[in-house]
């Protein structure tokens, strides 16, 4: 299993259950929220979370108590999604991430056209717009926003969860936010903000 890196631990059955019940299960709501944002289907999200927890239990000896259980579980969930659910996706991955990174590290990044969006127009959005804008992003862009802005992971933790270098985390996050702003700007215009 790819997500297993730490040295194997030895747990008694009682200890296994303690780790599972006290460290893994309290994260069920965050896990479900992540799964739902990825799959956009409640039943798929439920199955994905269930699969993730079953794998976590099966490979529990690879988890070291006192380390970051949330990052460990999110990594398993993300890999399960890629391996088992993303294959069902109709849209192939069309994003050239090398371009995203090259652009982020170039001087052009400061000269980019920021969508004309104002704080005032955002405050009138009732929630669906924000959620729909997030859901509309390509899954890899959506994922970095979820991990960073919703779940509060640090860049280093995100790099481990996603198996990408920190520099790529930063460039992808920057691009994701830009795309999100473009989407929100469209909504603001639909709401009647001429100069959003």
């Amino acid at each position, binding site marked *: 299993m790819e997500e297993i890196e730490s040295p194997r631990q030895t747990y008694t059955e009682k200890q296994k259950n303690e780790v599972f019940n006290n460290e893994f*299960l309290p994260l*069920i*709501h965050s*896990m*479900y*929220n992540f799964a*739902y*944002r990825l799959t956009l289907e*409640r039943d798929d999200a*439920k199955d994905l*979370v*269930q699969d993730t*927890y*079953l794998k976590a*239990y*099966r490979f529990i000896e690879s988890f070291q108590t006192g380390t970051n259980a949330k990052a460990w579980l999110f990594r398993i969930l993300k890999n399960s999604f890629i391996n088992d659910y993303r294959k069902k996706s109709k849209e192939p991955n069309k994003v050239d991430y090398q371009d995203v990174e090259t652009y*982020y*590290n170039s*001087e052009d*990044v*400061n000269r*980019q056209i*920021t969508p004309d*969006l*104002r*704080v005032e127009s*955002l*405050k009138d*959005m009732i*929630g669906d717009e*924000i*959620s729909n804008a*997030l859901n509309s992003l390509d899954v890899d862009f959506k994922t970095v*926003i*979820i991990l*960073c*802005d*919703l779940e509060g992971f*640090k*860049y280093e933790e995100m790099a481990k969860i996603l198996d990408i270098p920190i520099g790529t985390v*930063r460039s992808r*996050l*920057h691009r994701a*936010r830009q795309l*999100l*702003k473009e989407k*929100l700007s469209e909504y603001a215009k639909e709401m009647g903000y001429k100069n959003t």
Partner: protein
Amino acid sequence: MSESLNPFVLIDGKKPSCMQMLQVILDEQATPEQRDYFKVHMDRCMPCFKSYNLDATIKELLKSKCCGGEAPHDLVEGIKQKINQQLSL
């Protein structure tokens, strides 16, 4: 403020862009020195000032509008049952 004192300067010696500095601040991953530097920088840089307010608002909205969904009540029970089934095989 001299550029050589910029605590954001990257390991490879490159000067970071405004957007790169802003992101580190926004994501609360800056050191105290970086925060102090950016505060002064933002007073002089209108694009950074505007972007900071906008980006911070979006981040706040994401957190308040897209978090907090509850997992279905039967999910935990279902997981425990599956594990017990596997253990009894």
